């Protein structure tokens, strides 16, 4: 089960992921990001406080946006991951290409 809450704060887009991202609903996550990407968005932040689990398919979705975001000058970061999920990012090495930060303020501050 995955629920995605979208919040726009100016040019900041915050997507809160609630539940689990697996092979069956990773498409939903992809669609959700795709839909909310208006040209004026400069910062995309994933709120992972309520993310209980993420499978490789879910990680693949984030990965596929990394290059796209950097080309368009969008700052992308993830915050609030629980330890277990953070570990998954770390083992894959994804923390080297995506900024994983402790909280929202740090995430938004990244643009400066």
């Amino acid at each position, binding site marked *: 089960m995955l629920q995605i809450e979208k919040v726009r704060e100016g040019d900041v887009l915050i997507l809160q992921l609630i539940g689990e991202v697996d*092979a069956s609903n990773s498409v939903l996550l992809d669609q959700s990001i795709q839909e909310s990407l208006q040209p004026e968005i400069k910062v995309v932040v994933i709120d992972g406080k309520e993310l209980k689990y993420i499978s490789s398919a879910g*990680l693949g979705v984030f990965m596929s946006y990394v290059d796209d975001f950097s080309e368009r000058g969008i700052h992308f970061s993830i915050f609030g991951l629980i330890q277990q999920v953070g570990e998954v990012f770390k083992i894959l090495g*994804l923390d080297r290409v995506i900024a994983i930060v402790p909280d929202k303020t740090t995430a938004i501050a990244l643009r400066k």
Partner: protein
Amino acid sequence: MIKTNAIPLGKISLLLAILFWLALLLVDLVRIFGVINNLDSGISEEVTWGLEILFFFFTYFLYRHIFWKSKQVDFVTLLWRGASTGLFAAIAGLLTELIFYALGDSKIGKDPFLQTIFYHLNFAWSSVFLISTALLWKHLILYQKTKKVVKQWQVFELSMLTALFFIFFNHNNFDYSFLFGLVILLVISILLSANLKWIPYLKFKEKWKTLLFLFFILLSATLLFYRILAYGNEERFQINLTDNLFLMALFGFVIVYGLFSFLVTLFNLPTSSVFEQKLTEALNFQKLSQSIQPEENEEQVLDILVDSCIGASFSDGAWIALNPTEQLKIQNPLRSIEPSTLTELTALLPAEFQNWSLTPTNEFQPYSVRLKHPRYKSALLVPLLVNKTLLAQIVLVKEVKEGFNKEMVNIIGTFARQACISVENHRLLNQAISSERYQEELKIAQRVQKALLPLKLDHPNSFDICAYSNTTDEVGGDYYDTYQVDEHKFVFIIGDVSGKGTSAAFHMAQMKGVFQSLIQLGLGPGDFMIKANSALSKCLERNHFITASIFELDTHSQQFRHARAGHIPTLWYSAQTQSAEYIVVDGLGLGIVRNQNYENHVQEIAGNYQPGDFLILLTDGILESRNDVGEQFGYTRLKELVESYPQLPPVELQQAIIDSLHQFVGGDGMIDDDYSLVVVKFKERK
């Protein structure tokens, strides 16, 4: 060989009936001889009556047998048989009278023997006609029988049987008891005459024939009745065979039921077409409801539907308009309509007729519209919905205004729904067949993929290795492989493709290709990862990546080199410290950074190993398996498990891990991810 045929009941009955008739004749002749010569023949009346009854009985059995054999014969043919028997009997009777009239007062004309013979012949024909016709009526009465009708008939038969023996008590007197019996039998006959269900099923033409044959039967019965009454009034015969209750009641029954049938058939004539119409509709409905046969197709169903609709509504013309987005073609969509008229009529139809993307509701009923066309005045539009999309529309047109009444609309609506169900079933069946084919394809894929995992793992005497892989779907994305570089150098790898199923399986096959080609170049683990990343970057989809863990062992120097690309860290058990640790080394998954930059994200480490040490390479499916409270199997549980079994050979250790995993997940808990396991154990040097 002797054939044990069934007893020829018909022939026996015929023979016995003739024999008893002859006996009856003989007895009467003897009696007349006695009277003429003033001799007492000594033959009592009861003998005659007995023989008469036996004659009736066998005639009855004969005809019962004939009717039993001709169950499948239609009503009109049966009526024709009855009518012909009647006409024969009646004409024979008339001829007899004519002969005697011609003979006049001549000696032969007054000869009592000759008169008796002709009387007996007339009696026989009349009886045969009456009994056969009564059985024909039985056949008609019991058409579509119910328990009640069968009971009624049984009562009638029983009463007739009683009437047969009535003569022994009544001694052929026309008294009140005779009259009483006759009245009762007539009442039952009238009651039985209400059973005329066979008539509506006759076609219009058949009804006319039926009327004719019934008329013949009634005419013959009446003529015979008058003849027999005339005989009864003559005093020249010693024993009257015909004035008995049985025959009189039979006359009554034959005439009453014949008359009822005649009248009902006559009055059914005008409404006959309505019944025929309903019957055709029912047959059409049946045709439509039969699921489409393999050799038939949706177009044929639509063809049947259009014809059924035209038949049900007496339309003057019709056509099918197909939804242009549906892959359907109809050879002849027009019925009694010229293409030029079609264009005219289409322009007159409401705008929504052309709107194929209409969101249909469940109440998609046929609806009628008025037309302002010189020839056609009204139209009925029949939308056909399959899977909630508009498949086609049938347009029925009539030359009269408001030509479609409620009944027609209802029946056409039912036809349309049934046809749609047929088409839908046909599509579902096809889908089922093709999904079956996909299943077969998947099985092939599964076989091919299994072959990608090595059956034999390269290894020397100095270490043991075993591997296990489990996929939840038919195919999966886990990978392991080995390669012997030279006498002392061995490489083994474990990998995991992101995602699941078929796409993961294809990427896994690519990974195998990359490993088998690059490893032959003698690349070390670190360089291998860099080249593999570069190769896979060009062929992996943007949102896919592969994690891998690779080891290169030198059995001579007991050294190893290792690199990890985003994969689950390998568990290393050291015999010396008697503890297990996960090997920590940096490394980014393959295909995440798709440029030269990747070099900065991979690390290679080296070290020594001791005999008794062992390595557990695994994929995340094991660690991420969860029990019923959502807890993961996790790193610690695996580490502790391995530490408790340091002495087990690799295969048994591997089994212990799998068992423990299943136990953790729970009895019927499914492990919903692919998982793989490679166990390597270093042996004592010999």
